[in-house]
């Protein structure tokens, strides 16, 4: 066991490709824990950001600036009574949230956080991701039906029609990006997630800028369709609270309801990761080909530490600005400890970057530092999308269902078909 643990450390392959089951398990656990924690943080961030968009304060009571609110929420949801309606289909009602959760988390096996920072690299990576994430809708549909109640059923019907419609435009946009991978030197395209990023590296351009404006249009179509695909505002008709109380999960409560939330946020991260991988260069830092000197490598490797340092500074400023009454004393201490923790992480990352900058390129520290850089840039790009999801929700009113269908079939689909054909033509001409 120890040998299989150690033997992978110097490897440049994913655990799946190296056939190392121990490290594959470790990666799976890290991703599972990381996504779950991220979902909790997103919960806090969304409530806070939405509140600030509406000139409110948002959660303020549980912990400094409501930082402990997600933990309180999670505790409440776990202790809450788990109600199964008497007329519901017991088994299907029970299994529905699990379908959504399984589909959302299975996708993470192929998400490339770095050239070797993925559980596995499948030759059919993007196909696998689209297929499995489309299974998530089954959870929603089946949940709405099993509740045996009017609003959930309408929510489920809406959601299935919406997902099936937007998947078409989404798939065509993805195909036009995959076409671009075949502009490689080798002349063959790829469906592998890692291969797609490497193709962008090889061609020296993010696919969003390739064949301008074709790549950009395909990206925008995907960015619209992916919001519909994960049922978020302004396309959240499956859970439109003004019309359907809570849509497909009206009858759900407690832990089961929170599983739906977990699945929704996990799916949001997953589709953002697809967009980042296909169009925004995945794990690559800005300008890897233009600014490729060792000095630039060092400067960019400082970014993770500096980001955490900035966060720590914000937390320290927050501590200093806390009210001075004795009532807030514990909160002040808590926030100061939190800031210090983030500060230590920042120092740790900076120290690694400096040590790696001084040592040889192939040393373990340097490789560790590289890995941090890959994951950092990938997560940063995904985080931008996650913030956009909140921003959309605060900004745009919900679509009416016929408008939604019109946009899907009569606007996005023809445009994405046109972009696909034009990409093929331009690709043939250029090569």
């Amino acid at each position, binding site marked *: 066991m120890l040998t299989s643990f150690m033997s992978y450390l110097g490897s440049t392959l994913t655990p799946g490709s190296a*056939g190392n089951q121990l490290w594959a398990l470790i990666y799976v656990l890290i991703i599972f824990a990381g996504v779950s924690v991220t979902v909790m943080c997103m919960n806090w961030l969304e409530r806070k950001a939405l509140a600030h968009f509406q000139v409110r304060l948002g959660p303020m009571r549980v912990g400094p600036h409501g930082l402990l609110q997600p933990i309180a929420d999670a505790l409440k949801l776990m202790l809450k009574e788990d109600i199964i309606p008497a007329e519901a*289909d017991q*088994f*299907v009602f029970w*299994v529905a949230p699990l379908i959504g959760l399984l589909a959302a988390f299975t996708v993470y096996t192929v998400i490339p956080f770095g050239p070797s920072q993925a559980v596995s690299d*499948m*030759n*059919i990576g993007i*196909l*696998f991701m*689209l*297929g*499995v994430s*489309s*299974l998530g*809708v*089954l959870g929603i*549909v*089946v949940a*709405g*039906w*099993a509740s045996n109640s009017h609003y959930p*059923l309408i929510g*489920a*019907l809406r959601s*299935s*029609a919406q*997902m*099936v419609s937007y*998947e078409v435009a989404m798939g065509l946009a993805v195909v036009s990006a995959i076409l671009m991978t075949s502009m490689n030197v080798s002349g*063959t*395209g*790829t*469906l592998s997630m890692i291969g797609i990023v490497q193709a962008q590296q090889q061609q020296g351009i993010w696919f969003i800028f390739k064949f301008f404006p074709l790549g950009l249009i395909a990206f925008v179509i995907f960015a619209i369709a992916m919001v519909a695909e994960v049922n978020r505002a302004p396309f959240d008709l499956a859970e439109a609270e003004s019309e359907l109380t809570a849509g497909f999960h009206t009858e759900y409560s407690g832990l089961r309801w929170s599983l739906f939330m977990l699945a929704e946020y996990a799916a949001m991260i997953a589709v953002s990761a697809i967009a980042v991988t296909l169009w925004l260069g995945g794990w690559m830092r800005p300008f890897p080909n233009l600014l490729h000197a060792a000095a630039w490598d060092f400067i960019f490797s400082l970014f993770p530490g500096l980001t955490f340092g900035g966060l720590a500074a914000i937390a320290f400023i927050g501590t200093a600005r806390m009210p001075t009454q004795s009532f807030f004393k514990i909160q002040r201490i808590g926030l100061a400890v939190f800031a210090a923790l983030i500060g230590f992480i920042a120092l740790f990352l900076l120290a690694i970057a400096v040590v790696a900058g001084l040592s040889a390129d192939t040393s373990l520290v340097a490789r560790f530092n590289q890995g941090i850089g890959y994951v950092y840039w990938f997560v940063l790009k995904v985080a931008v999308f996650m913030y956009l999801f909140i921003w959309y929700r605060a900004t745009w009113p919900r679509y009416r269902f016929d408008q939604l269908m019109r946009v899907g079939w009569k606007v996005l689909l023809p445009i994405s078909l046109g972009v696909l054909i034009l990409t093929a033509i331009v690709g043939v001409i250029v090569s």
Partner: protein
Amino acid sequence: MNPAMNSALNSGMAPVATPWFFYALAGLAVASGLAVITRRNAVHSALALIVTLLSVAGLYLMLYAPFVAGVQIIVYAGGIMVLFLFVIMLVNIERSSKDRQFNRMWPVGLAAACALLALFVSVIVKGKAVLNDPITGKALWPDPMRLPESSNTQQVAAMLYGQAGRMGEYTFAFEIASLLLLVAILGAVIMTKKKI
């Protein structure tokens, strides 16, 4: 042990495609397939059908056909089954569950299924020895092609669309099939719309 597993063993990697997985997946497919026809509730049948389709996708993976497995998931389990459920949910379950589940023709259907099974078994048991091309004498059932996982999709594309200016082996058949699908789509639109 087949040659592909041998080569996988020689290259130092344990093969994932072990018989254990085959029996687990095949058993799951058969069990959920039986559930599809025996459940009274149509939604339960549809869920069982999804399990069947997914385990068949797993079998494709074991046959070194990852692209087909991916398409199986995306088209059947993800697309068609959602539409199935969409329709089934609008059916009155209360009434339909009181309907008779099998009509009077079930013995005929059973006989036909058994005949098909017998045909499959006989082909597996002695097909390789018997089935030869009458003209060339070559076996009609050559050893299955095992393309490495890393280039499988690319090879499928080369067969369908051709490579380096040559037409692929199946380009013509592929185009005919897509034309057929296009006709079916147009037919569906014309039949459902009264006024176009």
